[in-house]
């Protein structure tokens, strides 16, 4: 009656094939899932064989039944298609389900049937809706050819197209539409009155007399001339109130609220989109040490159908693995650094950072100079000739583009000497580029602002330089318009005149230089920076140039195709891979920085700088923001009281306190979760240790029993692959069967 006799030894000494081990709970779950790997009829056969060999049919039948029962409950709980089984088994499950249903009341049956139909209807509807999605086919194609990293860039582009479209619809319906429909709907528009002061003189810039064709082009590219007095720019919206028969529309208020609304909408949308990415990032960050598993288990992109892309993917994976292993070694090296080496590296980094700051400062200064020069050139009435004028007009854009082209090259060269770890190198270069890109817009705006508020001879009666900038908002709008157009032109020109010839040269020229140069890499970070830069300009410009979102929508629409063609024809994917998960968050993070940056100048100009006296909806107000308080003061007492209460300190303080409390609660919760996770992890390790201990014990017991009972040796051996369930030599028969009887299909377990 010793426990040892229960166990049967395998003479190869392998613990794995011990039937008892198969009964461990962790193993059971595995086997249950693995059952699907064997076909139905075969399974039946093997279980039949087992029944006869075990000599205890009752037990076997019982367990099998119990298993089936378990499966049945499982299948009832969730849709059949979520089971990892072959089609035949799923079908059997389904008929079983239906048979079960027969026994149910007709009401239940009806309910289940309608549920099923509704589900199918919903699936069909979703399928139809997905057809409406923009660029579905293109994005599929790109995904198939280049994998998910590059796909995320294109879906980001699609997101921006949608965002700009929505912003445009918003601005259009609240600002432009009332003006357009007013004459047709019996409304009349009261315009802002000129009070005859100096400030309200707005000289027309439209060309008079014979207009040359090239002048039209200049106007189209610079937003001046005939374009200045159109829906395109701020200055055109002179209406103060629109009187419809049924109501009065306050256009200045609508203009301001539309501005606030589009900024807020963008914020909410981006935050909502990035929330999932952010969550993932948090999980990943917490769990840094899972990076190797991610690369190995989730490394292959199964979408890839292109042989070339597959080869690239392989080499990039290899490269990534090697650099990661290298990184570990580098970390080791960093830890082993002597003090002298450390000092040297810090000194080098310090000097290089100074150098970078110097480069940035030089870039910003040249942007500043270029802007001021360009503004002065535009003001002067002397026109040199068509081309030179155009270059003067576009000087700031040209300088910004040049700076953005040169600095990334410089930064990626410098970073080699700074001796960071490879992953940090990339991130740091990127951060510098982001800073460069977005700050250059800031510098441009700053120089414009200094020009606008710069009054010579103390003649600032209107609060801005009214001699040169009689309608400064339109001027800013024109600058933004020019930046957008120029950006678009540059993107297309680079594709056609740089990337395409480069590909031709590399393909058809055999000299070493061309080979060394290689095909253009499609580097995702740089491309994303490019479009985020455009989007930031769009956000800033929409206040001054309400049609800009529509222009940006069209621009991104075409850029999508340009980039797609360029990617397929001209470029090769970057050897340095870009992960879809991290990239989504990175894109939106950079976009968020762009949005915040865009908010600053818009807020300053709305709240601080005096609005133009000669044009635009806010003529009657000192600053644009004033329209809001004056509207509130006209509201009925109750609402006014409520709004004032909301804006009061008492409310702000209490709101702040409540937010703080909520935050503390969340922080405490997070801490508790972390502790629980750690405890569970420890528990798991303990369990593992227990298991190993038990296995060792088992092995010992088997050895002993093998020595003691030579009977087992005389037993006919079954082949390795077929199951062996030996239970004969035991006094307590039932227990032995129970212990040694493994669940069905352990046969696959060799």
């Amino acid at each position, binding site marked *: 009656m010793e426990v040892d006799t229960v166990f049967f030894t395998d003479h190869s000494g392998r613990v794995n094939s011990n039937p008892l081990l198969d009964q461990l709970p962790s193993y059971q779950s595995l086997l249950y899932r693995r059952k699907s790997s064997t076909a139905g009829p075969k399974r039946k056969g093997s279980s039949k064989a087992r029944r006869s060999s075990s000599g205890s049919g009752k037990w076997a039948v019982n367990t099998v039944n119990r298993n089936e029962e378990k499966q049945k409950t499982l299948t009832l709980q969730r849709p059949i298609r979520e089971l990892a089984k072959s089609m035949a088994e799923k079908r059997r499950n389904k008929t079983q389900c239906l048979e079960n249903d027969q026994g149910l009341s007709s009401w239940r049956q009806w309910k289940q049937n309608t549920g099923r139909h509704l589900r199918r209807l919903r699936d069909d509807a979703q399928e139809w809706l997905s057809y409406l999605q923009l660029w579905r086919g293109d994005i599929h194609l790109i995904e198939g050819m280049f*994998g998910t990293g590059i796909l995320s860039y294109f879906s980001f582009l699609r997101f921006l197209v949608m965002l700009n479209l929505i912003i445009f619809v918003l601005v259009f319906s609240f600002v432009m539409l009332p003006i357009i429909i007013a004459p047709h709907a019996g409304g009349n528009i009261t315009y802002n009155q000129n009070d005859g002061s100096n400030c309200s003189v707005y000289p027309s810039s439209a060309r008079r007399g014979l207009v040359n064709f090239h002048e039209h082009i200049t106007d189209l590219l610079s937003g001046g001339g005939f374009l200045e007095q159109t829906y395109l720019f701020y200055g055109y919206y002179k209406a103060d109130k629109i009187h419809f028969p049924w109501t009065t529309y306050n256009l200045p208020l609508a203009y301001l609220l539309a501005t606030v609304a589009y900024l807020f909408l963008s914020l909410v949308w981006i935050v909502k989109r990035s929330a999932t990415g952010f969550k993932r990032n948090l999980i990943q960050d917490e769990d840094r040490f899972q990076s190797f598993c991610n690369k190995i288990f*989730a490394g292959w992109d199964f979408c890839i*159908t292109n042989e070339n892309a597959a080869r690239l993917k392989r080499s990039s994976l290899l490269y990534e693995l090697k650099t990661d292993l290298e990184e*570990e070694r580098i970390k080791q090296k960093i830890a082993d650094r002597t003090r002298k080496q450390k000092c040297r590296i810090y000194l080098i980094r310090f000097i290089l950072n100074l150098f970078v700051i110097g480069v940035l400062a030089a870039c910003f200064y040249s942007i500043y100079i270029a802007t001021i020069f360009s503004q002065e050139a535009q003001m002067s009435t002397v026109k040199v000739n068509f081309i030179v004028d155009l270059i003067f007009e576009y000087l700031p854009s040209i300088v910004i583009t040049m700076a953005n082209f040169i600095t990334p090259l410089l930064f990626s060269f410098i970073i080699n000497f700074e001796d960071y770890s490879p992953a940090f190198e990339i991130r740091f270069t990127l951060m510098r580029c982001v800073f460069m890109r977005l700050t250059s817009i800031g510098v441009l705006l700053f120089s414009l602002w200094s020009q606008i508020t710069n009054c010579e001879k103390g003649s600032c009666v209107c609060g801005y330089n009214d001699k040169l900038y009689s309608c400064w908002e339109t001027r800013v709008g024109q600058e933004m318009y020019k930046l957008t157009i120029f950006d678009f032109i540059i993107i297309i020109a680079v594709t056609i005149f740089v990337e395409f010839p480069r590909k031709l040269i590399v393909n058809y020229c055999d000299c070493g230089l061309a080979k060394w140069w290689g095909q253009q890499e499609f580097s995702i970070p740089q491309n994303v920076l490019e479009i985020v830069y455009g989007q930031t300009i769009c956000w800033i410009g929409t206040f001054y140039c309400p049609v800009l979102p529509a222009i940006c929508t069209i621009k991104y629409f075409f850029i999508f195709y340009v980039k797609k063609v360029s990617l397929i024809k001209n470029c090769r994917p970057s050897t340095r891979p870009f992960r879809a998960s991290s990239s989504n968050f990175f894109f939106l993070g950079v976009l968020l920085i762009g949005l915040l940056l865009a908010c600053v100048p818009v807020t300053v100009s709305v709240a601080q700088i005096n609005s133009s006296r000669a044009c635009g909806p806010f003529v009657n107000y000192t600053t644009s923001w004033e329209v809001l308080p004056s509207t509130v003061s006209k509201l009925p007492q109750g609402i006014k009281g409520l709004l004032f209460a909301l804006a009061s300190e008492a409310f702000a303080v209490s709101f702040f306190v409540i937010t703080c409390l909520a935050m503390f609660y969340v922080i405490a919760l997070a801490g508790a979760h972390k502790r629980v996770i750690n405890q569970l992890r420890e528990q798991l390790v303990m369990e593992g240790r227990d298991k190993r201990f038990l296995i060792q014990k088992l092995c010992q017991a088997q050895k002993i029993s093998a020595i003691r009972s030579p009977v087992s040796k005389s037993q006919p051996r079954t082949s390795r692959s077929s199951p062996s369930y030996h239970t004969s030599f035991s006094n307590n028969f039932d227990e032995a069967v129970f212990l040694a009887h493994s669940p069905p299909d352990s046969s696959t377990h060799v």
Partner: protein
Amino acid sequence: MGTTASQLGKDLLSEYQELTFLTKQEILLAHKRFTELLNKDEKDHTARVSMNTILTLPELKSNPFKERICHVFSTSENKDGGLTFEDFLDLLSAFSDSATLEIKSHYAFRIFDFDDDGTLDYGDLEKLVNCLTGETQDTRLTSEEMRQLISNILEESDIDKDGTVNLSEFQHVISRSPDFVSSFKIVL
């Protein structure tokens, strides 16, 4: 191929829709592609296409795990990796956009389990890494690197420290790997 819809039959089609994650269009497309692989004379839905023929599909051609995928989804008696149309649908369903993470990780585990023993041990991981980086001599990791890499993987994923990765450990790792769902996908 003619009208594929009539060949499949409406009842069968809706049944497949219910049993897989595929939409009607996808099933029809799959059927069209599958019948193209079949010989002219065998048109019933139990006909089996050999593994080599299946692997001529461009969607699988450049996949380093193509043989494993066929073996895992095959219900063939003699383990030759041949697929019937229903096996093929199972395959596409597991790799489809809307399949759950559990299904995907389950099949991924079986694909990576090269010796079919229910756990990922050192040998499986080594083969897996070699599949990912390519088999040729210059693309392989050196044995020292391989050892380091696999010990890193085991350190990260082997929670109960028994030297192998079992299904639940694998699913745990996968659930924390954000790229998996988007990359474990085959679209016809």
